[in-house]
């Protein structure tokens, strides 16, 4: 006689009802849809996103959610995961590989924020194919919706298409390529400013998704929803083997949606449009905007990194921001609570990480200003668990350094 494991049944339920988070499993079923307030005139019923009539209707809904005339739909293609992977692969083949990628891979994997090799093209494409449900391409002004197979249906794809339609409307308003060139001057500012683009799209998508789920949008506790989504994604990201590469699939969406939502509540769509003129350019601002928005701050001056000794070349410089500091401290001291690590990371004022290449060796130096000597000492203690890395507190600064061989790195800690 077999004993049934009822927990198995619960897992099945969780999968079926979509309790695991993510974008799949939303079923409209036979429930009457309650439209998004203000957009009652538009039919909210999920539809076949391949159908031009469906596309036109969902664009009208996206326009209504943004409070504007939607114009005509952009070209839309639905493609399988395999075709999407082939497209990404062919696009990657046309691009010049980023310089010093291997050194960055080594430096970031030394900090344990990625796994070795995860900056490689194949790993990035595999991640994109798995997690991307839709894509708006500003260069070609078209939309791709990815058919993930069994979980792809009208109820799951329609909110995705609304999300991408929002991007098309944003592009018509602000020119997303120009927006990116203006505000994405480092990894940190890129992540923060991209959070306005994805955050607005996620906010409107979520407003529509509530209707698709059969919920009454007027009864949703929206602040709680957007705050909870941040909490869930933070937990998820901190569990990932490569949290930094996974970040791009989560941070801009949920941290961005929370920020844009607060702005929308206070200033309506006018306030949201303003975020595209003066967006936050540090992840610290987004992370700190828990109960209300922290106003965007100017991007801090990038700290000066030490000049390497003879035989070394300063190859490249980046900014990991408060989010990067949070990830590194989490890896360095996994036993410390996430909230404690986050409050420490919010002391971030500025940082720069430099990678260096010598004859057969590589090194990195990461200098972080946390604004307070005591905080700097605490941060160093949280980073001490990163094996092979030397970390020191000097005044308000935290300095981390490592070389791929056993060379002395005294130069890395020079003031």
């Amino acid at each position, binding site marked *: *006689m*077999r*004993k*049934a*494991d*009822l*927990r*198995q*049944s*619960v*897992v*099945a*339920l969780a*999968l*079926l*009802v*979509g*309790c*695991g*988070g*993510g*974008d799949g*499993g*939303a*079923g*409209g*079923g*036979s*429930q009457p849809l309650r439209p998004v307030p203000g957009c009652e005139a538009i039919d909210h019923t999920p539809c076949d996103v391949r159908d031009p009539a469906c596309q036109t209707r969902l664009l009208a809904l996206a326009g209504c959610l943004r409070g504007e005339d939607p114009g005509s739909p952009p070209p839309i293609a639905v493609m399988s995961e395999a075709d999407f992977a082939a497209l990404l692969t062919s696009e990657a083949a046309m691009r010049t590989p980023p310089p010093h990628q291997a050194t960055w891979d080594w430096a970031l994997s030394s900090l344990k924020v990625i796994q070795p090799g995860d900056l490689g093209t194949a790993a990035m494409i595999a991640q994109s194919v798995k997690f991307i449900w839709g894509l708006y391409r500003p260069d070609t002004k078209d939309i791709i919706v990815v058919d993930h197979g069994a979980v792809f249906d009208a*109820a799951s794809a329609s909110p995705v298409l609304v999300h991408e339609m929002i991007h098309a409307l944003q592009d018509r308003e602000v020119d997303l390529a120009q927006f990116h060139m203006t505000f994405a001057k480092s990894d940190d500012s890129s992540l923060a400013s991209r959070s306005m683009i994805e955050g607005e799209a996620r906010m409107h998508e979520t407003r529509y*998704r*509530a209707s*698709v*789920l*059969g*919920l*009454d949008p007027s*009864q*949703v*506790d929206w602040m*709680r*929803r957007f705050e*909870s*989504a941040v*909490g*869930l994604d933070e937990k998820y990201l901190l569990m990932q083997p490569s949290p930094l590469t996974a970040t791009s699939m989560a941070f801009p969406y949920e941290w961005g949606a929370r920020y844009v939502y607060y702005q929308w509540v206070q200033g309506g769509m006018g306030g949201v449009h303003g975020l595209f003129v003066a967006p936050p350019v540090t992840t610290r601002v987004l992370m700190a905007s828990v109960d209300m928005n922290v106003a965007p701050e100017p991007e801090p001056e990038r700290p000066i990194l030490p000049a390497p000794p003879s035989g070394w070349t300063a190859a490249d410089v980046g900014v990991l921001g408060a989010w990067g500091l949070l990830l590194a401290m989490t890896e360095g001291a996994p036993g410390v609570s996430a909230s404690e690590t986050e409050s420490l990371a919010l002391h971030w004022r500025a940082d720069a990480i430099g990678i260096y290449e010598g004859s057969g060796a590589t090194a990195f130096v990461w200098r972080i200003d946390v604004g307070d000597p005591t905080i700097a000492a605490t941060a160093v203690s949280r980073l001490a668990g990163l094996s092979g890395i030397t970390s020191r507190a000097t005044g308000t600064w935290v300095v981390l350094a490592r070389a791929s061989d056993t060379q002395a790195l005294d130069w890395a800690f020079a003031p």
Partner: protein
Amino acid sequence: MLAVGCGSDSAGESASAIWCDGLCEAVVRCGLRVPTCRTQCEQQNPGLAAQSASGAAAQAPCLEQLSCGAIGGDDAAWQSELTACWKQATLSVAVTARVRQFCPRHAMTVFDCGYTLSIDDCEHGYSMWSDATIDQVAACDAKPSCDEFQACEKQIFDSL
């Protein structure tokens, strides 16, 4: 061989009796001699009481067709076939009045806490569970924080 009374006439029977009758039908079909099959099944699976009779009835035809490998000790087959029976049953289970009343609030709580659960999926998923189980989950919906809500729900289902 005819079934020993399961599935076709389940009025008034408990969920565990219906579920175990379905399983025992497969046991017989596979040529195993377990004279006290239903009694043993009910004793070894007290958690079946948390299921609804309609949910068990919806699973019964599928349970009757479990493979002899699953019945005979292949754990992987057992788990995957039970999961398949559960999923299939959620599509056909009758939605109860209690669940119709429960789902708008529960799906809203799930949504507020950052997940997605449609009213329709809620109704079909939770119709598999008894009213007593639904009442327990409904109490979780009233928890002030999402962490407490999730812990409460987890505790209910982990204890089954």
